[in-house]
């Protein structure tokens, strides 16, 4: 009985195993990225960046159809250009990061839409907007896994400067010049993860698997390391549970995964150990002397 509900879908159907592997790899990479985005008050950057990537992917799709390489390359190029320009402008001019990003992602979007409308408007962009986690072939799966691996390795390398800059950017500038390069590397990772996310879940939901787990982690831990662990774990749980819900109840898979993450988020918001609403309403007794 329990076996039928929780395990059999994956042993019986290969596409479920593939979906699970893809979603798990995605959650592993996106969890830490999301936490850093949140700590740096860049939670909406993921969303904006997804818009920046979309035109690149769409142009890749226009040039060579539903071709993984072309769409990935297009998305990466558009994303990198926007990320690097944003970082440079924010660090060298008076414009802050959010304003710089807003200008460049809007430009990217405009360029993409213009190119598409020049080539004709009849293509079905829906499948570019929403990837399908149920249809991961070997190529896509490898791409997602490689992205997750690269993400974790690079994060390990830039972890210290990244954390210090989140906490005290002024201090960081006085002791080291690694802040800038670490920040750029981090933005590149954001792009890489969004591109792989859009192959599995589609651009919009790719941002969801990045930001919702991070917000969940925030309600349970003050320590960055623990926060990342909790975020990644809730991403993993949401992927597994979301696929099961899609399998048993017949709802679309990508949204199901994000909705499960949403349920986890709402319960964390209420009952979280760090600043959860119930916690705040009924604080424990103060330590007494």
């Amino acid at each position, binding site marked *: 009985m329990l076996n039928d509900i929780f395990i059999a*879908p994956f042993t019986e159907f290969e596409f479920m195993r593939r979906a699970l592997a893809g979603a798990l790899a995605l959650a592993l990479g996106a969890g830490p990225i999301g936490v850093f985005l949140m700590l740096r008050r860049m939670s909406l950057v993921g969303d904006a960046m997804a818009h920046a990537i979309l035109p690149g992917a769409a142009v890749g799709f226009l040039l060579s159809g539903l071709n993984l390489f072309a769409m990935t390359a297009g998305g990466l190029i558009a994303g990198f250009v926007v990320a690097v320009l944003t970082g440079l402008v924010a660090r060298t001019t008076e414009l802050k990061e959010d304003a710089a990003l807003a200008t460049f992602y809007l430009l990217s979007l405009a360029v993409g839409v213009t190119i598409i409308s020049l080539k004709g408007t009849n293509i079905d962009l829906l499948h570019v907007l929403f990837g*399908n986690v149920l249809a991961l072939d070997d190529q896509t799966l490898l791409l997602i896994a490689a992205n997750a691996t690269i993400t974790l390795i690079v994060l390990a390398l830039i972890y210290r400067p990244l954390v210090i800059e989140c906490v005290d950017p002024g201090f960081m500038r006085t002791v080291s010049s690694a802040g800038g390069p670490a920040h750029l590397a981090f933005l590149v990772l954001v792009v890489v993860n969004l591109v792989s996310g859009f192959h599995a879940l589609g651009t919009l939901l790719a941002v969801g698997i990045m930001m919702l787990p991070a917000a969940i982690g925030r309600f349970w831990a003050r320590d960055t390391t623990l926060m990342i662990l909790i975020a990644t774990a809730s991403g993993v749980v949401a992927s597994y549970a979301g696929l099961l819900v899609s399998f*048993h109840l017949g709802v679309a898979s990508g949204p199901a995964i994000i909705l499960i993450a949403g349920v986890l988020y709402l319960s964390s918001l209420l009952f979280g150990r760090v600043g959860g609403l119930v916690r705040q309403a009924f604080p424990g007794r103060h330590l007494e002397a």
Partner: protein
Amino acid sequence: MTIRRNAQKEDAMLTRRQALAATALAALFVAPGARAQDRLNVIASFSILGDFVKNVGGDRVEVATLVGPNGNAHVYAPSPGDAKKVADAKLVFVNGLGFEGWLERLVKASGTKAPIVVATKGIKPLERAGEHEHDHDHDHGRADPHAWQSVANAKIYVANIRDALIAADPAGKDAYSANAAAYLAKLDALEHDVREVIAKIPADRRRVITSHSAFGYFQDAYGVNFTAPQGVSTEAEASAKDVAAIIAQIRKQKVAAVFLENVTDPRLVEQVARETGAKVGGTLYSDALTDDKGDATTYIGLMRHNLRQLASALVS
């Protein structure tokens, strides 16, 4: 096999000769005064309908299609240019049966006085295949709009188009009647070939899966069973439950082949084929003709292409 191929070749030559004769004849009729600006400006909502109208209208009619080759008429977003085209048209041909949900607003917005001709008038609609228990928010009814997938229905389209053209341009009555008769003869030959090829497929192998259930009328007319992992419209995303059900069904019923389409996400179909070992056929065209480089540039080409694909995947 060789006999059949020769017969096909002969057939193709014959139809080509007929087509030449028909165009020459039509040219003779309309030659005086058939300058471009004198032609009847008409609109067809999508490429297959446009092909019918071109065949019946011949030189007297200038046809523009809104959803061009390879486009998806289910989710099409009209442009201001389309509204202008509709406003300038003398006749607007639509498929009806809820196929072009976006068209009503376009016609209103364009302010056109042109009569709207529903080409499926008189066709007995089928229920949509693959209807889920839960209803999606479609803005159309439950009829399956892909009526042209049966050649008998295509003949009704042609008759409706002929009558509408004659009503709008009585002077061209003879030309339209002659064109329609020539085209109907070609459709008869097509129907005959479809039945002949399908009769050669063993009955227990006439089961295929395709990513978009647009073949309800083909199934009804010719007895090939089509199943799809998605509903009749491309709007709903397939769930893990749907995909699992399809895979279980292929395993149980020993479905022979899986086909891709030119408008829906092929990745899902490839996954199902990988997992079941069913044969992956080439592309079946359903909603749209291909552009000039493709192999379904006309309705007859499209049906013959689909027939070839079915035969090569199903004849073991």
